[in-house]
């Protein structure tokens, strides 16, 4: 398979025609954002791995102010959110939006500006956090740039830059979407256009209310709302927008049920943001609000089930693709983990389970399943599908991609189960009034296993980056016969 044979009918041929006539998709921007996404993922995981060493009394930079555990732990979460996920989704939008609207994005020059603005503000966030310019807003520790409680600048105002960056992203992608608004929109565009608007609203709301206006329990309620909106109204819609586009394209069949798509989108829009307060249950936030959050969290699980059913209905008859096509495998693994994570959420949001697992490693276990197991898996899967098509080159090594899949999946699942178990033990020891240091010592073996699992995940992504790099650098034309294999057809 060293040369391009005649392309099979369908997407591959369509791709060629579309791109030679009008270059709808700005390939360089897709590639830039995807590679940035993978690099930020590796960076974030490196910080996470280093931070885990602190728990083993083995962190080499302990005692050095700028690399103190508390500070690098922030880099781990913020780089995943603002570096890896945002770049991955923007890369996705550069491919998906022009194809769904039949129109180019606003401007290629704006594309480069957006790219550099996001890289700059992610670097500025990381450097600011190492320098101690952190903001006490979970998942939004990006520096405000102001001296606490004043309007005096003491650092780059990253919060403001993120708002500018989000508005630029909206201009870039909403332009083709608005131009096409007279036509009915495909499911992906519902998620994408709403997600773009939600990102701006959520970010502004969280970074003004919690930081400047609401104290104590109402601040906690707004903070929970912000955390959940960011995940539920930006990351999740972008992720599902991606799935609704790529899965039918790759499997070459339509989404199973339009009705389920409608139910899925609208119930996500309605129920997901109502979950916020479940981050602070059994607190001094009014109980009516807490119960409301618990009930809507459970409602989300019902919604999630409809979406999962829709995608497995789509997969029906093409199950072979899971075996033959790594992208589909990443996507559907992510969907199964999404189902698990939401089911877990519906269970642990109940007050009797909260009582045990809150404040324990159960929660990071859950968070890793969502941020890595679902959304990063989807970004990795999409990158694996787009990369040979954007570079025009055949994979340097398909075997390395399999290594990446298994290292990441085994690593993640080990970490998930390990942290869940640690959390339950921690929770019951807390309830049993065990001495504090006994609880800490009971966690040692779990923390060791967590580091090992994290090392596997990190190794997988380094292999992936190496493979992407070599693929881009090794001119060996991509063989479109793979498209049939990818669709789960004849191997």
């Amino acid at each position, binding site marked *: 398979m060293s040369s391009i044979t005649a392309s099979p009918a369908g997407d591959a041929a369509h791709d060629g025609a579309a791109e030679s006539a009008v270059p709808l998709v700005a390939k360089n921007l897709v590639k830039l954002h995807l590679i940035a996404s993978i690099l930020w993922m590796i960076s974030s995981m490196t910080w996470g791995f280093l931070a885990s060493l*602190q*728990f083993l009394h083995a962190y080499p930079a*302990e*005692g050095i102010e700028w690399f103190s555990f*508390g*500070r690098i*732990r*922030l880099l781990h979460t913020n780089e995943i959110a603002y570096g890896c996920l945002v770049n991955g989704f923007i890369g996705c939008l550069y491919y998906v939006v022009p194809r769904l609207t039949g129109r180019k994005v606003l401007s290629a020059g704006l594309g480069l500006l957006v790219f550099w603005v996001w890289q700059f503000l992610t670097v500025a966030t990381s450097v600011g956090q190492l320098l101690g310019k952190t*903001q006490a807003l979970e998942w939004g520790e990006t520096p405000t740039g102001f001296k*606490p409680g004043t309007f005096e600048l003491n650092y780059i105002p990253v919060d403001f830059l993120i708002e500018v960056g989000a508005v630029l992203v909206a201009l870039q992608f909403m332009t083709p979407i*608005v131009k096409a*608004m007279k036509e*009915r*929109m495909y*499911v992906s*565009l519902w998620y994408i*256009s*709403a997600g773009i*608007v*939600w990102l701006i609203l959520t970010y502004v*709301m969280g970074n003004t*209310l*919690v930081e400047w*206006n*609401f*104290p*104590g*329990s*109402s*601040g*906690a309620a*707004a903070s*929970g*709302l912000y955390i959940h909106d960011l995940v539920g109204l930006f990351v999740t819609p972008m992720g599902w927008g991606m799935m609704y586009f790529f899965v039918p394209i790759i499997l070459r069949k339509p989404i199973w049920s339009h009705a389920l798509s*409608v139910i899925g*989108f609208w119930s996500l*829009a*309605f129920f997901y*943001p*109502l979950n*916020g307060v479940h981050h602070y249950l*059994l*607190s001094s936030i009014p109980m009516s*609000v807490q119960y*409301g959050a618990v009930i809507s969290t459970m409602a989300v699980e019902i919604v999630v089930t409809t979406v999962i059913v829709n995608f497995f209905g789509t997969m029906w008859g093409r199950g072979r693709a899971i075996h033959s096509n790594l992208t589909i495998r990443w996507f559907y693994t992510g969907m199964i983990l999404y189902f698990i994570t939401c089911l877990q959420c519906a269970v642990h949001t109940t*007050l009797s389970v909260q*009582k045990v697992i*809150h*404040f324990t*490693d159960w*929660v*990071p276990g859950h968070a890793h399943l969502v941020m890595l197991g679902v959304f990063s898996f989807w970004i990795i899967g999409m990158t694996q599908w787009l990369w040979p098509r954007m570079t025009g080159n055949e994979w340097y090594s398909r075997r390395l991609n399999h290594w990446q899949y298994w290292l990441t999946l085994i690593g993640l699942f080990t970490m998930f189960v390990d942290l869940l178990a640690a959390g339950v033990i*921690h*929770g019951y020891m*807390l*309830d049993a*009034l065990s001495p*504090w*240091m006994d609880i*800490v010592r009971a966690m040692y073996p779990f923390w060791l296993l967590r580091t090992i699992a994290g090392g596997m995940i990190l190794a997988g992504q380094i292999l992936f980056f190496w493979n992407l790099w070599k693929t881009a650098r090794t001119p060996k034309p991509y063989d479109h016969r793979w498209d049939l294999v990818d669709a789960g057809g004849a191997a």
Partner: protein
Amino acid sequence: MMDRLTTVLGVGGIGCFAVAFLLSGAYPYAITDGREPEAGWDEIAKDVSPDFKDMAVRFPGGFAGLEGGPDAAKAGAPEDAWRAAYAKAIRRGRDIYIAEACWHCHSQYVRPVANEDIRFGKVRSSRDDNNVAQRPVLWGTRRVGPDLTHEGGLRSNDWHAAHLLDPQSTSPGSVMPRYEWYFADGWQVARRVDPAVAARERLDPATARAVSGVYASEDEAKAEMARIAASLPDERSSEKTRMSVVRAKGPTPDGVAVLAYLQWLGTWEAPPKEGGAE
């Protein structure tokens, strides 16, 4: 209709967001914190903690670097000078608590379940957290270390200083990082006891014990040594020649501010509502 841009953005993008904001942001604010003014720094620092006054003696070097510190540390300083220095110190300490992300491993949020009130102390009402030190809220998210809601006054300043400098020295096995950069080299007065007193009290006359706080400069420590020498009782007058100024580590002004914040935690509560029953 459900797949038109105007519906998606109007009803979904803005409508659903607004409903959620009203129900889980604005509504809890309106029925709790919105009803009373937030307590400011002056209010929450009005009762100066004895631990804070102790810091002026114990860590004079770092204390002098606090805003208003020198005024408060003067002999016979009025209570208002203490209050002013205290308010600024806990604010500075709170900012460091945020910068170091202490709140990622320590909660300030005791729940009425899992025996938490037995282990950590009283469950606080939303009124107790309606104060400026809880904006942004520092309830926390994970307990790698214990809850700090009621940390103030529980342990001595020395314990906290030693724990920040090297957590394993006070809590063997702890995974908390060392915060060495909140400590600086300084000078301290050390004294060996009079041999006669040592024999009576079963002390080692050869061991030099620290008898003053940690000063930033050698001269200040020497001045303190002279003051101590002048105040020795006759029985111990031989100790005047048994004193020396030695190098010692003490908290920097930032370090003192962190200690002040930790010793403040939980010491302020909202005053009872006017008209009685809460």
